[in-house]
């Protein structure tokens, strides 16, 4: 692994996220101050692997955990450091080094056409309009979207849109790429396409690390490291296949416990 620039390590030290809210849901605790709920943490971990997956139930805190990594969510207590940069005090630098890919590409794509959206990503680095347009066309061609520069984002297929969202993120050449359920809305062919592309990124260009959440356990198993999150905490930490095997067993054990007579949750297990 090349090690140019700051040490490519993500550190979470006692990171906690509290949100305003009065009534805790089952499995939720209250936050440090009255009237808040703890939705994540405390989380203590160091991510040094090129590819890290995060899995867990809906609402377990996966998305919050990965949003901590680019300062979209800031810790209520504790610290989050990305490649040596604190996500609170140096959030602009963190964001300029971090790419974030959302589940729904339509949220992420803000310009009317594919080419213009890529240009928007390049605004910061290329001031000249003509140069920017040419660079955007090159980025599109690189991602198999050549000739779609003038196509409305509403007229692209779901897979093309997600591919375009990825292209706009990669156009900024991020050192860390964070993806929140990047394949949830895609068909199998595009799912595999996007998976392969994401997994191939660390080590190319400036990109050193990839962190993603997913419900696709085959995808999670391909990671170098996989965190299992439940009720806002990391409950298991292993390599990809190991963590996925643990998670499957855990879910099946819980379901089996629920169906046992007298467990009180039979109606859900039917």
């Amino acid at each position, binding site marked *: 692994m090349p090690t140019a620039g700051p040490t490519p390590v993500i550190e979470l030290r006692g990171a*906690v*996220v*509290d*949100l*305003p809210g009065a009534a805790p849901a089952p499995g939720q605790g209250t*936050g*440090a*101050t009255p009237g*808040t709920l703890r939705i994540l943490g405390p989380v203590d971990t160091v991510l040094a692997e090129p590819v890290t997956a995060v899995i867990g139930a809906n609402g377990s805190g996966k998305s919050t955990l990965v949003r901590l990594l*680019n300062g*979209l*969510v*800031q*810790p*209520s*207590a504790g610290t989050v450091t990305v490649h040596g940069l604190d996500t*609170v005090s140096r959030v*602009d630098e963190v*964001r*300029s080094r*971090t*790419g*974030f890919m*959302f589940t*729904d590409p*339509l*949220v*992420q794509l*803000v*310009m*009317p*056409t594919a080419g*213009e959206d890529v*240009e*928007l*990503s390049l*605004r*910061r680095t290329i001031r000249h*309009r003509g140069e*920017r*347009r040419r660079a955007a066309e090159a980025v599109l061609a690189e991602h198999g979207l050549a000739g779609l520069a*003038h196509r*409305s984002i*509403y007229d692209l297929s779901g897979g093309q849109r997600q591919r375009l969202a990825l292209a*706009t*993120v990669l156009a*900024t050449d991020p050192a860390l790429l964070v993806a929140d359920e990047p394949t949830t809305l895609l068909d199998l062919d595009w799912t595999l396409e996007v998976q392969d592309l994401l997994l191939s990124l660390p080590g190319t260009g400036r990109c050193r690390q990839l962190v993603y959440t997913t419900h696709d356990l085959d995808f999670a198993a391909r990671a170098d490291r996989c965190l299992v999150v439940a009720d806002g905490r990391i409950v298991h930490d292993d390599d990809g296949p190991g963590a996925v095997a643990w998670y499957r067993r855990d879910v099946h054990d819980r379901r089996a416990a629920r169906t046992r007579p007298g467990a009180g949750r039979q109606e859900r297990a039917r």
Partner: protein
Amino acid sequence: MNLLDHRPGTSPVHRAPLGVKYAVLLVLTVVLVAWRQPVVVGAVLAGVFGLYLLARLPGEFLAPWRRGWPLLAFAGVARFASGVFGPVPLSPLDALGPALVVMAAVFGALAAARLLVITTPGTELLDGLAHFFGAFRRFGVNPEAAALAVNVMLRTIPWVGAAVRAHAEALASRGLRRGPVRLMGPVLVATVGHARATGEALAARGLPAAPEPKHPGPDYTRGA
């Protein structure tokens, strides 16, 4: 096709500098608003149609009427009512003329404004707006952010249209009749949700580029 989507082309209208387009739009609109004589409004409408012809988009001229006729009809009815029931009551026949002129004037202004938007690529509009908002920099306006906000607003219109359709379908599938009052609440909530998500996505992309001032309001993401 959306009402405000860019229609690429190489006509003189497409190639005209953005400043000229805005100047022409401003002149046409001021004339339409300030000088509501049937002859003048008719002449300006003919001029706007001429510009559509020049842009080789004559079929697009009537689109604001097809999509926005309730709005125009409302303006006409309002003018008609204020004529009939105004301080100097007119006979309904006399009030009809000014009402039609107002509708034609609003239509002309809409058509002219739309021609500017559909003959200019989005990035160029963005650059132009940023340039314009640059004049307000000393009042604390971040030109890039202001231009981006206008652009995002324009491009969210089709999204809101889709949200209205989706919620109407959801109501229909539950056997409820769709009505503007029933739709307004859910669509408003969905739109606020989309706005939040879009803001988050822009922040994640490091946009707008200039550092945003730390606002002093309550920050829920940090503990006290």
